[in-house]
C-alpha cells in the first residue's frame, strides 16, 4: 500500500461522504438524525411498548446498538464493494483493498459522529467516568474486528456470490445473539458458550463496562477478539492480494 493509494482512499471516502450529504436537502444533518431515529425506534419498542428495562436500560441498550451498527453497516456494504467496483477496476489497476477500505473509512467517520452523540447523552444522563479513558482502546479493537471481517467478506463474495445471502442472515443472527437486547452473562451452559463465539458480544460488553459501569474492559476476552481480528485481517488481505488480477474478470 503506497502513500498514493492511502491518499486516494482518503479522498474517495471524503468524496463519498460529501455526495451522501449533498443528496438530500438536510445534508449532514442526517448523520445526526439517522442514528437518533434508529436509536429512538428501538427505545420505543423495548422501553415503552414491551416495558423491558430496569436500571440504566436505555443507555445500556443504546451503547449496544451504536457499537453493533458500526459493525453491521460496514460489513453489509462490503458485500458488494468489489463487484460494484468492476467498471473502475477494468479501466485502471487498483489494489483491491481500496474498495473495502473506502467503505470502512466512511462508516467509521459516521460512527464517530454517532459515538459523540452517545457520549453527550451519557454525560447528560450522568454516568461519565474515568474509565472513558479506555475508549481509544475499544475503538482500535472494534476497528480491527471490522477490518478483519470486512476485508475477508469483501474478498470472498465476488468468488462465491451465494455468500451475500448467507451473510445477510448471519448478520441478523449475530445481531440477535450479540446481547444488544439482553445480558448474555446471565446465560449458562452450551448456549452461553455459543454466544461467546460471537466477537461482537465481547466488544459490546466492553463498551458497556467502559461507558456505563465505570469499569475497565475484560482484557482477556478483548485480547482473544484482537487475535481473531488480526487473523481475519491477514486472511482478507491475503485473499485480496491473491485474487487481485482475477476480480476484474469476474462478472
Amino acid at each position, binding site marked *: 500500500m503506497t502513500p498514493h493509494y492511502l491518499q486516494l482512499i482518503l*479522498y474517495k471516502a471524503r468524496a463519498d461522504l460529501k455526495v451522501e450529504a449533498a443528496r438530500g436537502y438536510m445534508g449532514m444533518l442526517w448523520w445526526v438524525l439517522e442514528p437518533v431515529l434508529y436509536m429512538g425506534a428501538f427505545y420505543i419498542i423495548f422501553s415503552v411498548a414491551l416495558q423491558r428495562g430496569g436500571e440504566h436500560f436505555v443507555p445500556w441498550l443504546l451503547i449496544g446498538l451504536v457499537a453493533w451498527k458500526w459493525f453491521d453497516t460496514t460489513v453489509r456494504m462490503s458485500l458488494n464493494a468489489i463487484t460494484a467496483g468492476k467498471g473502475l477496476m477494468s479501466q485502471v*489497476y487498483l489494489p483491491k483493498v481500496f474498495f473495502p477500505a473506502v467503505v470502512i473509512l466512511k462508516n467509521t467517520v459516521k460512527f464517530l459522529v454517532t459515538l459523540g452523540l452517545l457520549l453527550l447523552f451519557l454525560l447528560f444522563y450522568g454516568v461519565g467516568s474515568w474509565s472513558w479513558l479506555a475508549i481509544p482502546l475499544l475503538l482500535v479493537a472494534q476497528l480491527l474486528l471490522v477490518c478483519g471481517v470486512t476485508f475477508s467478506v469483501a474478498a470472498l463474495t465476488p*468468488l462465491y456470490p451465494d455468500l451475500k445471502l448467507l451473510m445477510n442472515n448471519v448478520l441478523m443472527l449475530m445481531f440477535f445473539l450479540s446481547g444488544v437486547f439482553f445480558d448474555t452473562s446471565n446465560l449458562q451452559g452450551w448456549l452461553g458458550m455459543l454466544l461467546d463465539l460471537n466477537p461482537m458480544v465481547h466488544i459490546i460488553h466492553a463498551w458497556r463496562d467502559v461507558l456505563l459501569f465505570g469499569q475497565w474492559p475484560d482484557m482477556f476476552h478483548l485480547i482473544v477478539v484482537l487475535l481473531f481480528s488480526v487473523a481475519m485481517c491477514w486472511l482478507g488481505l491475503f485473499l485480496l492480494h491473491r485474487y487481485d488480477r482475477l476480480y476484474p474478470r469476474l462478472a
Partner: protein
Amino acid sequence: MNPVLALENVGVAYRRGRSLRSGELYWALKDISLSLGHGETLGVIGRNGVGKTTLLKVIAGIIAPDRGQIRNAGVSASLLSLQVGFVPLLTGRENAILSGMLLGAPKSRIEENMDELVAFAELEEFIDEPVSSYSAGMRARLGFSVAMQANPDVLLIDEVLGVGDAAFRKKSSEEIQRRIRSNRSVILVSHNTQVMAKLCDRVVWIEQGVSRMQGEAGEVLAAYEASV
C-alpha cells in the same frame, strides 16, 4: 535494443458459463509475443474480437495472463481512459482530482496543473459546479483533460479518438498525437491503417488470438491489408 516491455507466448482464457472452476475454457488470447522498445510506438492491428482489448488489459496489469510471461523492465503501463470514476454530484474540480488520482497521478501534481487543465477543457466558469450539471460535451472535455494528467512510462491507447464537438475533437486528437510522437513508449490499438501508418514505428498483427506478424509498420500493414 533492450525492450522496456515484452510479452512471450501470452494466453488468456475465460471460462464459459458462470462457474469459476468448471466450464469449458475459451482462449481470448492464445499466443501473443511482442516487444516494445523505449520511446517506441507499437501498433496493434487486427479485426474485431481478436482480443486487442484483453491484450491491453494484460499489459496494463489489470488482469493476469493464464500462460506465458510478461517481462517488464520496471515500467508502469496504463490505459488512456476517459472519465474514470467520475461522480456526478461532485464538482468538476473534485472529479479532476479523484479521477486523476485513480489514473495514478499524484494529488499534488493535479492541483499544481489544475489551471492548465481547466483552461484546456475550456471549463473556467464551470469547474466548481457539480458535473451532473454539465453537458455531455463538457464532461467529455473534462474527462479528456484529466486523462492527460496520467503520466505512465508506457501509454496504452485503444483507438485515437478525439472527443467533444468538432473544435475540441481536433484539439484533443492533436494532443494525443503529439504525445504519441513524443519520446514516450506507446502501444496503440486501432482499426485505421492510415492512422497506424502515420503514427507507429512498428506494428503487430493479431489474428484469432495469435500474434501473426511483427515488424516495420509499412510492411506489416501492407500484409494485413492484402489479407483482408
